[in-house]
């Protein structure tokens, strides 16, 4: 294939390496309509091929542009514009043109800030709804079942409440569930009584609709307060807070590590801690949303809407206000009472 190439004109100079070899040589690339030639310093043609078979690397900064010839020979050149002119390809440098330091980058910067806010505010919730929607119901049902088994094995004893008391609460519960109507959303609502000495007056909701209430809670709270608490827990289930929180913390973690990329030795840990703290703020928002949902639901079912805030008052007088701050999962009781008062006064 070695022949004389002195009369080939339009060309770019650079350096070349034969396939699988580190042997560097000065070379130039020439292209006309049908043929491309790689020519060395002694004017010998090293490779000859169809110009359409040249593989152009993307242009990144000022670094040399790479051209791979069909046989694997690598050609490198600094003459970016000449090469693009010669090969007639400007697509590979499209991004490069936007990346150049230019006042336009201020717009990019602003768009980044707006975009981050938009992703946080709308993008993540949409992704979460999608993920929740895609989660198979049988999985959610088995989550409830196995968590109940664990609770029973580790933290709970059978309830010691008299049957009459249980029946009363069960009737309230059924009233509340029937008031849900279309908001029930295919969950399997179920009430479970447990004696959990370590937990105090407390209640919890599992993703598929199992709601656990401790004996302590029923013993100290009025029927309206119990109804308020049940409404709150039903709110968690109906608005799918449990699943959302799981997806939220996983999604936030992944998104931050993907967007930030390699942030260097110290910053990385700080960022991931930050994401954890932000997901806690999300959990506090959920508590307030469930309070709001629960109060309205209890009211529709025929209970006093002040029941929940009465319960929080009771908790404050027994245990004092637990201050909600940026590393707790629940807001403080006082904050929740104020939030509920604002709700009932507004109507």
């Amino acid at each position, binding site marked *: 294939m070695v022949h004389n190439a002195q009369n080939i004109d339009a060309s770019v100079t650079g350096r070349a*390496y034969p*396939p*699988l*070899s*580190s*042997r*560097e*040589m*000065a070379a130039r690339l020439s292209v006309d309509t049908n043929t491309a030639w790689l020519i060395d*310093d002694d004017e010998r043609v090293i490779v000859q091929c169809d110009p359409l078979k040249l593989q152009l690397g*993307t242009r*990144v*900064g*000022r*670094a*040399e542009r*790479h051209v791979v010839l069909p046989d694997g020979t*690598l050609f490198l050149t600094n003459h970016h514009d000449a090469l693009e002119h010669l090969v007639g390809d400007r697509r590979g440098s499209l*991004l490069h043109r*936007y*990346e*150049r*330091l230019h006042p336009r*980058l201020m717009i*990019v*910067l602003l*768009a*980044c800030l707006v*975009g*981050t806010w*938009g*992703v946080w505010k709308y*993008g993540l919730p949409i*992704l979460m709804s999608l*993920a929740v929607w895609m*989660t198979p119901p049988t*999985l959610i049902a*088995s*989550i409830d079942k*196995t*968590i109940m*088994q*664990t609770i029973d094995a580790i933290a709970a004893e059978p309830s010691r409440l008299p049957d009459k008391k249980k029946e009363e609460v069960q009737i309230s519960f059924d009233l509340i569930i029937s008031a849900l109507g279309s908001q029930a959303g295919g969950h399997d609502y179920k009430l479970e009584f447990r004696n959990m000495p370590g937990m105090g007056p407390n209640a919890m909701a599992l993703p598929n609709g199992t709601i656990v209430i401790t004996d302590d809670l029923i013993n100290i709270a009025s029927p309206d307060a119990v109804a308020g608490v049940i409404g709150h827990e039903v709110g968690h289930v109906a608005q799918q807070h449990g699943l959302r929180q*799981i*997806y939220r913390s*996983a999604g936030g973690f*992944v*998104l931050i*590590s*993907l*967007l930030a*990329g*390699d*942030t*260097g*030795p*110290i*910053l*990385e840990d*700080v960022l991931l801690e930050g994401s954890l703290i932000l997901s806690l703020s999300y959990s506090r928002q959920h508590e307030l949303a469930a309070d709001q949902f629960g109060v309205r639901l209890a009211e529709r079912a025929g209970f006093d809407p002040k029941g929940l805030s009465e319960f929080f008052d009771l908790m404050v007088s027994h245990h004092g206000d637990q201050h909600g701050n940026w590393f707790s999962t629940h807001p403080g009781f006082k904050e929740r009472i104020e939030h509920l008062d604002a709700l009932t006064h507004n109507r």
Partner: protein
Amino acid sequence: MHTDGEYNLSADFEFRGTAKEFFGIWIVNLLLSILTLGIYSAWAKVRTKKYFYQNTYVAGRNFDFHATGKQILIARLIILVLVIASALLSIIPFLNIVLSLTLLMLIPYLLVKSLRFNAHMTSWSNVRFAFNGTTGSAALNYYLYPIIAILTLFTTWPFVARSVQRFHVNGHKFGQTPLYFDSPIKPFYTAMLAAFAWVLVTVITLIVILQIFVAALTIIAAQMDSVAADTQLQFFVGSTFQIITILTIGIVPFGIIPAVAIYQAMLRNTVYNYTILGENHRFYSDVSALSLLWIDMSNFVVVVLSLGLMLPWAHVRRASYLASHTTFVPGGPLDEFVGEITANVSAIGDAYGDIEGFDIGFAV
């Protein structure tokens, strides 16, 4: 082009990138990643790596990174589905134990996959790297040896560290040319003791400063209010508590982070200085622990104060420093390295590293 004997001259590593130029690449990458909800980040990663590799020169020849965004995206999607599925399943008790054990066994495999992928995608002077380390030896180095070291109360830790470096360096090949690392154990003990000494000195210094501070406060408090010895006692108990708090808060930025920087700098120098490429090509690194520490700490402060905008500057600054303190000492002509035809390598391990992160403890 080359005169005989040119290769006897040592060739400094050289980073030719600039913060200005990288800023544009970084911010456009970020915008496109945000607008695509993270999908573009696979291409952004390739572009960033290309920028840093292509701007790193040794003897006038640069590195290159060959992975494509598509290949990284596909691997990331697979990993993401697995991570989400296991996050969901791990709510179920007992199953989460099984899942954690499976992951524990998978990690050495994924690590080796990741090293293979990155080696195969990296080239210098048109010759690609390769990695031949095995999953078994990764498991030995990251699980078994550390457990043995813990049983000896970390006194044998330097042997583990040296073995990990051997696993990394000796597993790599430059084309068909093997890389080889071995060193006496002394530099590893020196590095560990230096890091340990730094932490010890920091703790003692913090305690002394706080004691003086508390003593001064107690004297002042005693003069102001001589009524209640009880309050003084309370004050004293309170301040002991504060000492412990301040100590635990202060130990990370003043003790642990600098100690890690010192250890890494010393380790890096050792690894470069004892590594041989082929018959007699050598490397030399003289990174100073204090300079590296200064760069890491000031980078962190500048990046935080600039709300992240100076991150590209911080990256370029660190890369330039490391390059300017690394030298290649050729022992033969640079034109005679031969590459191997690259087998298909999967990006799965690398994607796992991107999402969950490996803590490999290798001196880069």
